[in-house]
């Protein structure tokens, strides 16, 4: 059965409203996307929606108590809460460099979590 569904593309901040006709998990037609990435977004949204994950992990011996981390690729949406909960228990030791892989293959998804900033070691005088 064909149905009309409205999507808001979250791939970039433009946030196009896309009107799509879908049948089961198949995309029949769509309009409203300002670029091609909107097509890929709707396809994924009806089969396996994914989102980027950004959160923090704890740092030992760092100039800051927390390190912000981001996924190198979007994760399946239904795993976001479990992934964030797992990352709450992760601790790293300073110094950390930007881009450093903090968790490899998060929950067996093949996705890595990387450092979003450097955190130098805490100065002895601080």
């Amino acid at each position: 059965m064909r149905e009309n569904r409205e999507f808001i593309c979250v791939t970039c901040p433009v946030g196009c409203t896309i009107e799509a006709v879908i049948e089961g998990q198949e995309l029949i037609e769509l309009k409203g996307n300002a670029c091609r990435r909107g097509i890929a977004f709707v396809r994924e949204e009806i089969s396996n929606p994914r989102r980027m994950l950004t959160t923090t992990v704890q740092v030992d011996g760092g100039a800051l108590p927390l390190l912000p981390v981001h996924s190198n690729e979007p994760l399946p949406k239904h795993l976001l809460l479990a992934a964030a909960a797992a990352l709450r228990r992760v601790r790293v030791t300073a110094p950390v460099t930007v881009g450093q892989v903090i968790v490899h293959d998060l929950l067996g998804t093949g996705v890595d979590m990387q450092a979003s900033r450097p955190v130098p070691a805490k100065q002895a005088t601080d």
Partner: protein
Amino acid sequence: MKQLQCDVLVIGAGPAGLAAAYEARRTGAANVVIVERNDEAGGILPQCIHNGFGVRALGADLTGPEYAYRWIDRARKEGVGILSRTMVLGLEAQRAVVANPREGLVDIMPRAVVLCMGCRERPRGALAIPGERPAGVYTAGTAQRLVNMEGYMPGSRYVILGSGDIGMIMARRLTLEGAEVAEMAEILPYVSGLRRNLVQCIRDFDIPLSLCTTVTNVYGRDRVEAVELSTVDERWRPVPGSQRRVPCDTLLLSVGLIPENELSRVAGVAIDPVTGGPFVDERFATSVPGIFAAGNVVHVYDLVDDVTESALAAGRSAARHAMGLDGGPRSEIELAAGDNVRHVVPHRLDPGSLEQGEVLLHLRVRRPIEAATRIEVWADDHRLLSRRLRYVRPAEMVTIALQEQHRAMLEGARRLTIHAQEA
């Protein structure tokens, strides 16, 4: 008192300040210094750990800290000096008195100044919520800093007032950290932040969102125990009988940002009461010769990419001014907000500047129109250009480019008016 001469002094090391300083150096200013009151450069971005920054300006979808580090790196490589933990105490066109713990008072004599102080959150006082004043009421940005940088969770069950981007982003963030967001309330009949945040921060996590709703009371003596939410009518008056009590231990306020212009006022810069920022021309020059302004201090942008772009232009202008390359006398046209337009930046422009390239007009509409909309630019009573958009929303700034071809029609005009009407 230590004295310091420089060509361009930039105040604030957020994305605006970093880009302005970087571009001032590239334009040829020899000595460019940024003063920043925080320990580190980056402005608000180190606490904005989510992604979505730089898609247009850098062609990459970065987190806030990554975007900041790219620009800190660029500015350093260009030879920009950054004085952190430095407060500006006084400011005039060619003089700034600053203080920091390393050097005490420093008297800086710049040839040009760029104001890049960003914005701050509207506090609770501006809202007049009745009820007790218990602990547990925070602005969304303060909570963001506590959770993302200090590792402190302000509470476990939240109500968020306002559907601005910071509020929506915090709703997701708190949920990911294991807290419960009981409800988000928005007084307007539509969400005030970006659509993508509505999807990925609110709907993805099934957070209840109530439109036309506000907080009418806060309960709790020492700590918030509950808030009262009420539906409002079209004039924002609570509808009698609509009150309901929502238990929570924390209330977050995400009710808007105001440009931070105390220092601009000290320097005598004229402020537009509509934007809350300085009146600027297309070079981002303020009313005081030699003082320029860029980023959220001028008007609150929704995307950092536009902040960076405006700051590059301001940095270029400041460097030109410092090098004595300002050019001859200007003939300026005033820009005016017409039908359904709240404000337009810049406030004035010299058509002659179109010779050097396009000039971007940034505007915000008053009311959303969820249908084809025509943006029209009129030079006195001639229509200069018309652009069709699929919709307009107050949350999404509209950008219109004026080009060289428009110059002839602009010469001699007195006023440029911009309208946004249903097509």
